[in-house]
């Protein structure tokens, strides 16, 4: 697996196939709202201000408060930068396209502000975290040629015959492992099925792994019989979403490849009858339809928002203040879980400026963390649309340590500047032949100033600016010369991040990004990079073990924790209650704050412009969970 994201300004943090569903936690909530409408949202370059405690509840007045429900109005109009290549829910792995599919059919469940679970198609519950029972709503209906009630059999069949098959190759298949450590899914009633995990996982819903679409068994059967993956991918009903019945707030009327998707309002939307959601859903949706147009040119997308032809557009940071001045547009700044960071290479082909790799020393890393001003990164590089990062979790996460004093704020206040940086580096080099000269330059044993390289993305100006700023700060505050070099991200992944396959057995081999101990190295030497950022998974941070365990699958930098990471992650992974899990995670994040295994810099925000008369969007990670209840103010 990989949890890497490009830190480039021109690319949205892309989901890999295993994580794209988890990504819905980010994109889906925002995406349901149509926020993935433009490239502008694709830049991890925006800012959030302090987490807004008020924003944990939707600011849309509820039906009870307003006495009467909103009027229906014309269509919700949005633009997307790239045309969808498929709307087949079994094979889509693009988050923005998931939004389009989501208009016509909800997935199993979602989360509301405050990480509150909302059962959509099914509820999920477990006594011990090992066996999860899914209970379907009883009013879910397929439509078109497949008109009938949705049953548990449809989900079980989909998992067993498609995702757990060897031929279908769906993006979701890694979520449904088979074999000894596999997941066992069984139908236990007409509207009930259960998933048995090999071990307890109290955050299983938050992992998004059990998130499924309802697909009629009859559509899948012929392809299962023939093991015809191509046929399944090209099936007309799946591509044109003809079977969605009452499963979504809208129905797909027209998919004009390359130009537009037109949806019309669904009068039979199943959540209208639900008593466990906002009363606003009683008459939802309130738009007559949705018109989603493909507009590749950013200037045109922004122009459309300005003239009212579009109700939403992602805003590039340099245009945010301009749109904030407009009466016709409301700008939302929503936090993301993506962390921008510096990766230090602790393997044997890193720190090429003298004997002994200083990145391996915790005190040295802390010194480097003090050398870069996070506030200046936020203001100067991300134009104020980001938050400083001190540990591997955003502050709004429920797993962030409540006791702030346990988290040192490296790179801000007293912990920023030449003195805190050099004092920690001096501690690190105390017993070595490295030294500082009278001019504050860090000298290697040969008496030369230490010079290291920093790779940045060749296709991102923001990433390049970040690298240049870091180089300047390291030289000024730590006395280390940094040479920046532009590299294509895919080339970096192959030649630098992935290690070459070692000859013979190694102590561990966790895949291409961690094939073994530090003497197992990549094809090319490297010191530092800012090309990739990491997803911090605030809903289910237990998966961060892949970055910070010695044998974690995404540990290309060769970090060896000097705290009991394995034990703490074990505690978290085997916890039987959320409290137990949270205790372990908080301890992990305090340790990560001290260890600084990577140079944690900022958490980016999305900046999204909405037409001012649209009621519903909130400045929260979970904005968009209630998109069917959004409406246009009279």
């Amino acid at each position, binding site marked *: *697996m990989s949890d890497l994201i490009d830190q480039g300004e021109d690319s949205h943090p892309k989901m890999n196939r295993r994580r794209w569903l988890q990504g819905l936690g980010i994109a889906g909530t925002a995406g349901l709202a149509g926020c993935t409408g433009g490239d502008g949202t694709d830049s991890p370059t925006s800012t959030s201000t302090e987490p807004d405690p008020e924003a944990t509840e939707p600011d849309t007045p509820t039906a009870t408060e307003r006495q009467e429900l909103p009027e229906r109005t014309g269509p919700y109009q949005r633009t997307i930068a790239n045309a969808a*290549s498929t709307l087949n829910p079994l094979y889509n792995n693009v988050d923005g396209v998931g939004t389009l599919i989501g208009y016509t059919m909800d997935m199993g469940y979602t989360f509301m502000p405050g990480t509150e679970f909302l059962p959509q198609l099914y509820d999920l519950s477990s006594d011990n975290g090992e066996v999860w029972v899914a209970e379907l709503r009883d009013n879910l209906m397929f439509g078109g040629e497949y008109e009938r009630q949705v049953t548990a059999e449809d989900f079980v069949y989909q998992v067993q015959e498609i995702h757990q098959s060897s031929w279908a190759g769906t993006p979701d298949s890694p979520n449904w492992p088979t074999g000894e450590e596999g997941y066992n899914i069984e139908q236990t009633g007409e509207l009930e099925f259960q998933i048995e995990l090999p071990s307890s996982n109290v955050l299983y819903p938050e992992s998004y792994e059990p998130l499924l679409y309802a697909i009629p068994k009859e559509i899948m059967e012929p392809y299962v019989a023939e093991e015809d993956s191509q046929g399944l991918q090209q099936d007309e009903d799946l591509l044109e979403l003809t079977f969605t019945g009452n499963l979504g707030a809208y129905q797909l009327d027209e998919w004009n490849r390359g130009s537009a998707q037109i949806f019309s309002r669904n009068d039979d939307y199943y959540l209208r009858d639900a008593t466990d959601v906002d009363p606003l859903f009683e008459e939802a949706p309130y738009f007559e339809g949705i018109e989603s147009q493909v507009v*590749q*040119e950013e*200037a045109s997308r922004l122009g459309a928002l300005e*003239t009212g*032809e579009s109700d939403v557009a992602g805003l590039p940071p340099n245009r945010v203040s301009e749109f904030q001045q407009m009466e016709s547009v409301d700008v939302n700044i929503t936090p993301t879980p993506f962390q921008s960071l510096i990766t230090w290479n602790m393997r044997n082909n890193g720190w090429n400026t003298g004997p002994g790799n200083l990145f391996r020393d915790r005190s040295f890393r802390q010194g480097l963390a003090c050398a870069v001003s996070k506030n200046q990164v936020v203001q100067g590089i991300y134009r104020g649309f980001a938050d400083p990062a001190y540990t591997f979790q955003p502050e709004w996460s429920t797993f962030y340590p409540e006791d702030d004093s346990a988290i040192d704020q490296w790179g801000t206040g007293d912990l920023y500047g030449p003195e805190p940086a050099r004092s920690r580096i001096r501690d690190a080099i105390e017993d070595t032949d490295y030294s500082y000269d009278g001019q504050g330059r860090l000298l290697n044993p040969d008496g030369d100033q230490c010079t290291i390289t920093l790779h940045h993305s060749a296709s991102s100006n923001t990433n390049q600016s970040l690298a240049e700023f870091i180089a300047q700060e390291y030289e000024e505050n730590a006395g280390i010369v940094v040479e920046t070099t532009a590299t294509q991200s895919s080339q970096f992944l192959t030649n630098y991040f992935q290690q070459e396959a070692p000859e013979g057995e190694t102590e561990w081999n966790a895949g291409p990004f961690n094939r073994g101990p530090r003497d197992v190295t990549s094809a090319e030497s490297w010191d530092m990079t800012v090309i990739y950022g990491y997803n911090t998974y605030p809903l289910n941070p237990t998966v961060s073990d892949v970055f910070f365990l010695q044998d974690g699958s995404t540990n290309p930098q060769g970090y060896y924790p000097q705290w009991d990471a394995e034990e703490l992650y074990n505690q978290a992974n085997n916890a039987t209650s959320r409290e137990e899990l949270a205790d372990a995670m908080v301890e992990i994040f305090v340790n990560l704050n001290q260890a600084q295994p990577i140079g944690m810099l900022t958490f980016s925000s999305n900046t999204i412009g909405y037409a001012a008369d649209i009621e519903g969007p909130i400045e929260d990670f979970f904005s968009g969970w209630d998109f069917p209840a959004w409406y246009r103010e009279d």
Partner: protein
Amino acid sequence: MGMEWYIVRRVAWAAIVTFIIVSITWGLMMAAPNPNVQQAVTQAALAGDDPEAAAERAEERLGLDRPAHERYLDYVVGIYTFHWGWSESRNQPVTVALLQALYYTAQYSVPWTILTILIGPIVGLYSAANQYSWKDHVATGFAFFGYAIPNFFFGIILLLIFGVTLEWIPVIYQTDVPVFSLANVNQLAVPVFVLVTGSIGGIMRVSRNESAEYVNADFVKTARAKGVSTYKIYFQHILRPTMVPLSTTMVSQLLALFTGASLLVEVVFSIPGLGTTLYRAITAQDTSLVLGSTLFFTFIATIGNLLQDLVYTMLDPRISFEDR
């Protein structure tokens, strides 16, 4: 043995050229790494699976494990039976994708071509008739401006002025308006204007220079002496011989713009035509659609050349089919 035989030979040659180009394109695409296989390998690597096994599975699934000649033969047979494959990036048959795109491209290409053919030579002729006067300079300046300014940039500027600031035209191209409607004229006016200004420059200059040769020619003087009207002199005695060399420029320029500049204009104005379809197919490495589009553009180019030759012979009676 006259024009019919000439057309048959030209069409046959066009078919051969098309075949060669398609074969070369197929060869180049096949030599490039297959994106689906690459994707499978990357995903396997990221998931910690065996990339080589993933590549093998993907090749098997895509039929790439078969000998190249079999795949080539299948492809060629498919081309001539209109089975141009399945577009992976649009999930529909390639022929359907191209027809859908052509529907939108034709809506602006037809008026653009007609206007270019009409306006370009007339402006050139006007310039030639008023050589070195302020009118000539204005016409030349206009032509050079349109020729020099990049179409996509000009398009964005006009879109911002007329779409965003003045709100006279829609910023987003609407696919659902009827073809023959004022709304469609309104949304296509600016892209057509951008393309026309971009394409008349070269045509205007050639027609001006060629016309200038004839303005003071003996046969023109004779016609004037005989009392032939000015309009007749310009349109019949000067424009006709001018059109012979001009037709070559016109076809090649329109073809170049059709495949190049129109693509950028389609991207700027969000027109889902052939240009954007080809562009997206290339960026998505959608082999079938790239090949289909290439075939289509090759077809257009060969037909264009054929028409050019035919127009040439019609405009210049001295050209004989027998000599060819």
